[in-house]
């Protein structure tokens, strides 16, 4: 600092972190300043070196930071994926709620939203309710009576009364025919019984209430309960069943007329400019209306008018594609066509067919006991696709998933439970996961663009996996099983879970979470059993070298251990002797198997339990050496025991650590601690053994 200040006389700062990381630092300007004020090469070189050092320093700290935060990064990524699936589940719940509410709304008798918005005034509600009831009534009349499309021509038309009547001959007073009469707020409709269909009437005529003269027939010979209708040139006599129905009819007529009158007056008052045309002649006006009506009737193409019937045929013949195409055509047509009563009528009928089609399709997807599931999911594809196109993707998804659940359940039942558990688990997990993968493919094909369905699917997979986990736990953990088999089974399941991830369904953590406690417990059990058997075997141990009886057998043994990674050549004495106890020979073998299995099971969450297990077992074995040494044995035997301890603590331990590092990338701390703890066993010994130790340990590292 001093140097540069003295040298330049100007204030060019030495490069340091704070300067370089300041916000207003400009490299070009800084370099220019430096080169202006620095004199000579050495000075510049010094500064360059300093900057280089700084850069290296920064690099290192950056690396450190990255490393420190790496675990955190992984953890948060995991946490994020958990959160994601939770959000999916929430979204699924919400969409379920939504569809529930909408279905409630549609099934309710009350119109649209009157159910939800209870706050609206009672009066309004009553009106609405009446409207709805009226609408339903009109619709039912439309269904019953053929050819009364004009019924919906007047939007304000309300249904008032209906009943069967017998029409009489005006001269002879004999019954001509039976009719069904409908009284509306603006007219009387007469429909004659249709001989062909049951409960079907044919529209005969509609009399406008404003010109309908009703006469109470008080006396007509023997004929009772009759009334007359006078509409020029018609005079018609109708007979009721009883005095009360007749009275009812006359009252209804009267009431309807009065209501209409007040309404007309109100209209006249509110639209004064219309009144002159009204006063000209009601007859001509109604004629005009009729003409208008005729015009609009002819405006619609024939296919459109026949669409409801055509749809019935299509649905009955199971030509669902055709039905859907026709439905769409109708919708398109309705969107552009002029709105009139015919259109509304056809639309309403088509709506009914739409619902029918949906019902039929949903039935297709429903699971029934008698139904063959041979076709599997492929058979459901058409129904699902059509339902989606009909706008019922939620229901389709629901039914699709139910079908999947059913198919999976069949697989569970079909998979044979005979044979070993590993074979069963292998079969079952293979079948189940392959099926789930297949279903995922099918699902993605069927529901490519629906987030609600997607979340439903994820929730479904999650449920299926937890079902599978439970099944797995019951089969695997609740029965005696070797650690190798367990490790194999779990490894298999994990592999399958990984495969699911390729479809974007990452639920490994869920399965892992379900199994973790059971694995930990199993490890603890194996640990306890192993330690127990070590103690038991130690009692029988007479601490003698192993006699392999023949050269042949010795070399066979050496090969066997070499394959496991243990080179025992240095322990050979004589032709057939190994300076290791038979007990330790066996221990090293089983311990390596344990280690392999544990490493197979390894996950970050299980690491603690695994470390515990292997270190506990290892310590149990080495402890036997310590015990025998502390008992004060003969010098001869002592050397032998120490040699054995040395075998465990170096040869075996080094191999174990190597395997551990191979798998995890870092040595096992706990094993190291044991090695340190018991190193005194082999350091207190004769120089020969120490030589051997260093020799072998260095060997191992080669």
């Amino acid at each position, binding site marked *: 600092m001093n140097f540069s200040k003295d040298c330049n006389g100007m204030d060019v700062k030495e490069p340091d972190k704070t300067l370089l990381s300041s916000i207003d630092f400009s490299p070009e300007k800084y370099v220019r300043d430096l080169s202006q004020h620095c004199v000579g090469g050495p000075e510049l070189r010094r500064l360059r070196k300093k900057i280089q050092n700084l850069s290296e320093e920064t690099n290192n700290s950056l690396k450190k930071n990255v490393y420190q935060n790496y675990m955190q990064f992984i953890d948060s990524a995991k946490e994020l994926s958990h959160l994601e699936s939770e959000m999916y589940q929430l979204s699924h719940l919400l969409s379920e709620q939504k569809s529930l509410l909408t279905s409630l709304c549609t099934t309710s008798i009350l119109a649209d939203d009157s159910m939800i918005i209870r706050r609206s005034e009672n009066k309004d509600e009553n009106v609405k309710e009446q409207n709805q009831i009226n609408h339903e009534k009109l619709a039912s009349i439309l269904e019953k009576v053929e050819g009364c499309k004009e019924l919906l021509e007047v939007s304000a038309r309300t249904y008032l009364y209906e009943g069967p009547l017998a029409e009489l001959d005006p*001269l*002879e007073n004999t019954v001509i025919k039976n009719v069904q009469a409908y009284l509306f707020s603006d007219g009387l409709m007469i429909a004659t019984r249709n001989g062909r269909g049951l409960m079907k009437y044919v529209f005969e005529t509609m009399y*406008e209430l*404003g*010109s*309908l*003269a*009703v*006469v*109470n*027939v*008080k*006396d*007509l*010979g023997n004929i009772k309960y009759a009334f*007359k209708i*006078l*509409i*020029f*040139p018609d*005079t018609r006599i109708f007979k009721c069943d009883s005095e009360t129905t007749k009275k009812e009819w*006359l009252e209804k007529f*009267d009431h309807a*007329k009065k209501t209409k*009158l007040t309404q007309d007056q109100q209209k006249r008052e509110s639209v004064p400019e219309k009144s002159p045309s009204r006063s000209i002649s*009601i*007859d001509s006006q109604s004629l005009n209306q009729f003409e208008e009506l005729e015009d609009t009737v002819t405006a619609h193409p024939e296919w459109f008018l026949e669409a409801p019937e055509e749809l019935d045929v299509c649905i009955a013949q199971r030509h669902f594609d055709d039905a859907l195409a026709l439905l769409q055509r109708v919708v398109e047509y309705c969107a552009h066509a002029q709105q009139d009563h015919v259109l509304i009528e056809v639309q309403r009928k088509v709506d009914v067919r739409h619902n029918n089609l949906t019902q039929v399709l949903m039935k297709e997807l429903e699971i029934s006991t008698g139904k063959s599931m041979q076709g599997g999911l492929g058979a459901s594809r058409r129904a699902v696709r059509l339902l989606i196109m009909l706008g019922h993707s939620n229901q389709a998804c629901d039914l699709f998933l139910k079908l999947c659940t059913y198919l999976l359940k069949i697989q569970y039942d079909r998979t044979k439970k005979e044979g070993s558990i590993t074979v069963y688990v292998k079969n079952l997990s293979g079948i189940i996961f392959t099926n789930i993968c297949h279903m995922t493919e099918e699902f993605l094909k069927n529901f490519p663009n629906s987030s609600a369905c997607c979340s439903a699917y994820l929730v479904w997979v999650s449920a299926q996996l937890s079902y599978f986990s439970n099944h797995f736990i019951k089969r695997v953990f609740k029965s005696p099983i070797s650690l190798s088999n367990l490790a194999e089974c779990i490894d298999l399941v994990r592999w399958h879970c990984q495969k699911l991830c390729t479809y974007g369904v990452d639920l490994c953590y869920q399965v892992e979470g379900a199994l973790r406690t059971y694995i930990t417990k199993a490890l603890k059990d194996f640990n306890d059993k192993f330690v127990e058997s070590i103690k038991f075997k130690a009692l029988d141990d007479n601490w003698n070298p192993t006699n392999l009886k023949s050269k042949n057998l010795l070399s066979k043994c050496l090969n066997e251990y070499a394959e496991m990674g243990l080179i025992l050549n240095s322990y050979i004495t004589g032709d057939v002797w190994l300076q290791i106890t038979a007990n330790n020979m066996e221990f090293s073998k089983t311990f390596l198997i344990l280690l392999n299995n544990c490493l197979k099971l390894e996950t970050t969450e299980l690491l603690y339990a695994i470390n515990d297990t292997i270190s506990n077992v290892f310590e149990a074995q080495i402890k036997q050496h310590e015990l025998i040494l502390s008992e004060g044995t003969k010098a001869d035997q002592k050397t032998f025991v120490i040699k054995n301890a040395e075998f465990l603590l170096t040869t075996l331990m080094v191999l174990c650590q190597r395997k551990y590092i191979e798998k995890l990338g870092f040595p096992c701390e706990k094993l190291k601690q044991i090695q340190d703890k018991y190193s005194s066993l082999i350091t207190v010994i004769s120089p020969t053994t120490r030589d051997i130790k260093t020799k072998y340990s260095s060997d191992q590292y080669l």
Partner: protein
Amino acid sequence: MAKKATVQPALHKVIMVGSGGVGKSALTLQFMYDEFVEDYEPTKADSYRKKILLDGEDVQIDILDTAGQEDYAAIRDNYFRSGEGFLCIFSITEDESFQATQEFREQILRVKNDENIPFLLVGNKSDLEDRRKVTFQEASDRAKQWGVPYVETSAKTREHVDKVFYDLMREIRARKIEEKTVNNGRGKDKNKKKKLKCTIL
């Protein structure tokens, strides 16, 4: 038609018109059942039928007792259209009801489009002489002007009740016979029409 006539006696359709409360229903009921109903209840539109002997001939009378007040002109027209003869009634105790007969007459003529439609002007409540507001002269002048008979009746005392109905029926019958002869005159046309229809068929 001929066959029917043998089975059923000729039917003459009579319509009672007039303002509310003038006694249309009372006259009808007196004629039908020989009884006088004191209580007043506005009529909507009632019809009655009775077999009677008219000058030795069995006939049926169909009486349409209309409402004094009908809000819809179109409905009133339909009542009028169905009638073959009219009893236009007013109360001699109420000038307004007499004035209203003018309007009824015009309406009936408009609807029936026939100046000679069987029609009687009837001044009812003749028993209430002390409360008379419409003089006999006044009423008969109007009847004369229309070219119709004027009769005063009392539904209470049954004075002239049968007379107005029988007189009207005679007019209707006469009118029908007259029409028949006219039709017969035109009978050839009708036959021609029928023949035409046959050839089409």
